[in-house]
């Protein structure tokens, strides 16, 4: 920041008066204007901004939906239909919110796999990365709670299945379940508190996102080479370079988002959720939303209730240990010929698990789920530690600049640089 000589200097009298009392503008300036960004970032690095945008979309549409929604078991289903039929643009707000949740997960999965591919979880970014895992857990809880609110068949049975999962916890499970239900089974008190928590958690996500961005701005961003910033020549200023790139990527993502809202608004949901909740009949197939399917497949792969629950939660929590399970000192998989292949195998296994999660729990599907579950955990517990020990990485470039301009040119900063790079702020100071 100061290396660029572009620290915020208040000009007007009022700005100086305010800055000396609360240096807010200076904080924003150093974090989002003059902040140094590696010059070689690709478009996978725009998903952080896209995720912040989606969080904003979800909070805004959610607050407006709550103005019309009635969280009691007798009225919830009808109030959602009221939103769809009577409220001006209610259909749009609801479709934005429902599909927005899916788009939020599309973006977060790309963001997570980007971090795993480029080794963004390794030192010194462990805390940054674990904060991300916490955000992901909060997102999962929020999405589950939100899906129960329309009080359709999938809402009711989803709530029943998940609260029964918690009852598998030894000793305290039944107490936790009773406190969540507020009764002897899933019912109106359950729906009321789920609505309250669904409204609360997004603001907790906002809080952890602030910590996540703070940690990011302490360690600086990783980049496709995985090598650290060595000089001012390796970076460009956040504004305008990253800002404009993030805005462009967010606009493209919004086109994708709009396609679902306006052309396939119910494709990612379940028809059964347009049937009011009925405690006496289970839908033929209880299937969670697509973004939970891999974990659902893991849950069903184990023919033991507690074991399945442990593995399912373990599958998320094991992500938090990646910084210490991966023994390689090279961050980016671009320079790891063996691990790179295992990485893509892991991605494929995750997608197959998702496919299996939507299939009925019988015969070959169960066996395939068991094999994929074993591989999922083996990736973290065997592949990450062992490949790092035995693999010979490719030669790393000397610097981020060299990776962009080719070897030997890094000294000559005046020529042979890409157009964007030539406009970089002065970095000699």
């Amino acid at each position, binding site marked *: 920041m100061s290396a660029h000589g572009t620290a915020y200097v208040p000009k007007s009298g009022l700005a100086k008066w305010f800055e000396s009392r609360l240096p807010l503008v200076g904080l924003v300036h150093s974090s989002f204007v003059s902040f140094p960004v590696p010059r070689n970032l690709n478009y996978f690095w725009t998903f952080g901004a896209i995720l912040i945008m989606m969080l904003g979309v979800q909070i805004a549409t959610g607050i407006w939906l709550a103005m019309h929604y009635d969280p009691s078991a007798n009225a919830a289903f009808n109030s959602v239909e009221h939103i769809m039929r009577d409220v001006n643009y209610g259909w749009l707000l609801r479709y934005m919110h429902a599909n927005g949740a899916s788009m939020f997960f599309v973006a977060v999965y790309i963001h997570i796999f980007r971090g795993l591919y480029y080794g963004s979880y390794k030192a010194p970014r462990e805390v940054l990365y674990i904060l991300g895992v916490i955000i992901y857990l909060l997102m999962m809880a929020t999405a589950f709670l939100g899906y129960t609110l329309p009080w359709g068949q999938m809402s009711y*049975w989803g709530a*029943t*299945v998940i*609260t*029964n*999962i918690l009852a598998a916890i030894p000793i305290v499970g039944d107490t936790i379940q*009773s*406190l*969540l*239900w*507020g*009764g*002897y*089974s*899933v*019912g109106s*008190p359950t729906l009321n*508190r789920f609505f309250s928590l669904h409204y609360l958690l997004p603001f907790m996500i906002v809080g952890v996102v602030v910590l996540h961005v703070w940690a990011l701005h302490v360690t600086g961003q990783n980049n496709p080479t995985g090598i650290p910033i060595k000089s001012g020549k390796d970076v460009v200023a956040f504004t305008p370079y990253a800002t404009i790139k993030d805005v462009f990527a967010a606009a493209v993502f919004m086109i994708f988002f709009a396609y679902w809202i306006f052309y396939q608004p119910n494709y990612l949901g379940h028809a059964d959720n347009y049937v009011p909740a009925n*405690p*006496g*009949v*289970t839908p*033929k*197939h*209880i299937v969670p939303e697509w973004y939970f399917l891999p974990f659902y497949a893991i849950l*069903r792969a*184990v*023919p*033991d*209730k*507690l074991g*399945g629950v442990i593995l399912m939660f373990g599958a998320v929590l094991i992500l938090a240990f990646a910084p210490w399970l991966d023994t390689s000192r090279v961050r980016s998989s671009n320079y790891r010929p063996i691990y790179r292949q295992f990485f893509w195998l892991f991605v494929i296994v995750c997608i197959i698990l998702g496919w299996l999660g939507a299939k*009925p*729990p*019988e015969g070959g599907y169960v066996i395939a789920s068991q094999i994929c579950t074993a591989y999922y955990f083996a990736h973290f517990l065997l592949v990450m530690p062992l490949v790092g020990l035995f693999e010979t990485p490719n030669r790393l470039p000397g610097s981020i600049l060299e990776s962009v301009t080719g070897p030997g040119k890094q000294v000559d900063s005046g020529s042979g640089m890409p157009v964007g790079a030539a406009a970089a702020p002065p970095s000699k100071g």
Partner: protein
Amino acid sequence: MAITESGAAKPDGSRRDFLFLATGAALAVGTGAAAWPFVASMAPDAATVAAGAPLDVDLAPIQEGQIINVFWRGKLIFVRNRSEKEIKESQDVKLTELIDPQPDSARVKEGHAKWLVVYGNCTHLGCVPIGHQGPYQGWSCPCHGSLFDAAGRVRRGPAPSNLPIPPYVFEGDTKIRIGEEGGKAVA
């Protein structure tokens, strides 16, 4: 702890240490007392508890082989009028073959072997099993494939245990009261 000029304060057992511990204890108790109403308010409320009073079920209209659904405390309960064949098969199973071994006599009330009363949610994750389905002709769960026999006993996982039996008593031959046991309503 510094010793004062008068020499009254000792390194341990001083008034300051006492104040420190007392303040800490008051803080801990106060925090717990303040947190308690928040946690307790999430437990089933008085109206919900009142609505969970015992429920009378008339068995007379239930035909042989029929399963009816009743709700008590928001929970689904199956009442099944078992055929002679179903009773015999349930009694003849070797206990060593069972995942959660229980003789048929422990699943019904003495002298009322044809009436099976069980909770209607699978012990795996709470889905509603479908009656008269699967190789044991008891129940088959559509969610994760658990199978139950005509005594509500689990015969194939992932369900870990038999369908639980709610508290109930017979009041005559054709009436049961669910939610009562040993002459008084259950908590």
